[in-house]
């Protein structure tokens, strides 16, 4: 991996002619995080672009190796901080498969997981849409998006206790059932969403400035997209309808009725439209999940060797107290083995390759962060475009750097 210690690679510096080397970032506002792109430019035109990653390296994968399986969830959730549930769900699914308890997860927990998966997708796309708009000079979109996102964060806070990292999805189910009053709040959101979506579309979709800036910019051919391992909306904007939810359904996604939006143009505008459509499809799934939530039921697997028993029982039963004590102080043990589990995160295929040696801590957690692979394609997309268009291309790929650098 190229580290940023040598940002000026010799092949760039040795270019002849009018070429000039420009460092874009890592503090550039349009890089949506701490990304540095070494640009070789001729006038305003990008000849070569070299993304330099690693400015936000947090060592989460390594940290997780020193935590219990249950504790690792808290740091893994922080990788893609705009869509925390996608991280924690993917990790929980992987560990559940290693434990062999996938089939035992209660139905209600699976529904709530889907609900939050899709809510977090809408929230994440809200941030993308708002910042993408700001990059192109559309300020109002940002406010309307963040207002909508705030409603979702409120729901996360109500269920999990924190706006951004609720630590709600757990191995074996969820950390507690939905609180009283949650469904009313959710209904209000479901009702509010279509109107807000109409407004957002009205502001940008037909806007000539927006269209001029995005149509025909950063065209990613289907072949190139596959070569760069691009996934998610960016891939579907290039005409390939690959979606993990449909291809490898998890958590009962096969029982929901939704479409996978695909566009064939492959430019920034196509990716924009795919994401907008996706938000509406997520809304459809949220509505379906909401209907299933009227049935009460358990939200955590009843397996005392994996999940701590309910707290009120530890004052009554010695067995429960011992299991509580041991699971809190030593964590649960996971049988030896390895597993790859992926989910469709708002950015694409998010995967965890989890290795267990039979202990109470993960031996290795390897992340397949969609942002990282999507970001690589900048190298192929940027040449020939103006510097100003690079901002559009970056925005349309929607990278999150907590995930890229992890």
């Amino acid at each position: 991996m190229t580290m940023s210690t040598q940002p000026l690679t010799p092949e760039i510096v040795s270019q002849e002619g009018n070429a000039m080397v420009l460092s874009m970032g890592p503090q550039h506002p349009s890089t949506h995080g701490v990304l540095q792109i070494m640009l070789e430019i001729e006038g305003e035109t990008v000849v070569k672009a070299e993304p330099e990653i690693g400015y936000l390296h947090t060592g989460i994968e390594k940290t997780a190796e020193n935590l219990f399986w249950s504790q690792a969830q808290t740091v893994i959730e922080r990788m893609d901080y705009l869509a925390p549930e996608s991280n924690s769900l993917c990790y929980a699914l992987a560990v559940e498969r290693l434990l062999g308890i996938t089939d035992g997860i209660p139905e209600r927990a699976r529904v709530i997981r889907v609900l939050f998966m899709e809510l977090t997708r809408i929230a994440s796309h809200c941030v993308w849409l708002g910042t993408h708009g700001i990059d192109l000079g559309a300020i109002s979109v940002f406010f309307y998006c963040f207002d909508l996102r705030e409603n979702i964060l409120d729901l996360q806070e109500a269920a999990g206790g924190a706006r951004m990292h609720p630590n709600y999805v757990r191995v074996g189910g969820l950390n507690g059932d939905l609180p009283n009053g949650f469904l009313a709040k959710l209904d209000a959101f479901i009702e509010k969403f279509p109107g807000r979506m109409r407004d957002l579309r009205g502001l940008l979709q037909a806007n000539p400035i927006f269209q001029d800036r995005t149509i025909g910019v950063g065209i990613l051919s289907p072949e190139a997209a596959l070569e760069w391992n691009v996934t998610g909306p960016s891939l579907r904007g290039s005409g390939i309808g690959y979606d993990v939810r449909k291809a490898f359904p998890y958590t009962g996604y096969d029982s929901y009725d939704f479409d996978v939006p695909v566009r064939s143009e492959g430019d920034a505008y196509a990716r924009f439209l795919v994401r907008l459509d996706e938000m509406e499809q997520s809304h459809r799934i949220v509505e379906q999940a909401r209907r299933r939530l009227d049935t009460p039921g358990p939200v955590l697997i009843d397996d005392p060797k994996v999940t701590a028993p309910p707290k009120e029982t530890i004052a009554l039963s010695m067995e429960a107290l011992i299991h509580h004590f041991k699971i809190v102080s030593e964590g649960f043990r996971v049988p030896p083995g390895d597993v790859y589990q992926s989910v469709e995160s708002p950015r694409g295929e998010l995967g965890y390759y989890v290795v267990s040696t039979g202990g109470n801590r993960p031996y290795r957690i390897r992340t397949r962060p969609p942002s990282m692979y999507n970001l690589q394609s900048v190298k192929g997309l940027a040449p020939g475009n103006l510097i100003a268009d690079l901002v559009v291309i970056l925005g349309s790929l929607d990278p999150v750097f907590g995930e890229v650098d992890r």
Partner: protein
Amino acid sequence: MQSSTIKKNLYNVGAILKGLSITFGYMFRKRPTIQYPSVKKQHAPRFHGLHELRRYGDGQERCIGCELCSSACPANAITVIGAENAPGDRVSPGERHAARYEIDELRCIFCGMCEEACPTDAIVLTPRFEMADYRRGSFIYDKDRLLVPIDAGVGAAPDERPGGIPGDLGRVADIKSTTDVAEGYSATWRGEILKTQRRGLASQ
């Protein structure tokens, strides 16, 4: 000027006017902005904010110094050192109490696992989130700052038998987790919450 260009320009003007009409429309809607700090957001009851150590209704500390919170903490933010209760000068019910209890709020990631680990519902995350200070050292909260006022205890202490475990276990957490979301918690003063909860417990 060609007619197609004129058509396109007209269309563009139309699209821009449509967009402007949307923003104009929002001027007459209810603003979602909260005038912080003069108005404070009502947080959900489950909100993970600043910790506090609770007491029983009789003023004894709930914490028994078992260190489960510190072992559950993924960020190693909690330090507990236990000690034996002197007969006659009991800090907590049972034989053991926390001689030292410190949380480094700068390390804390507010995941709430300490709260889940606590076998006596002693450590609880409150909705208080305003912790700004000038020195890093002042983020290490010790027992003096974590313990609630002596009159803000909740629940009846377990019987005098050493090693008893509180009978109201889970109910304190219950109140926290099943309170109506719409009611919310005020982040202003932690004692207020406790007194609300004490009333809640008494009525059960």
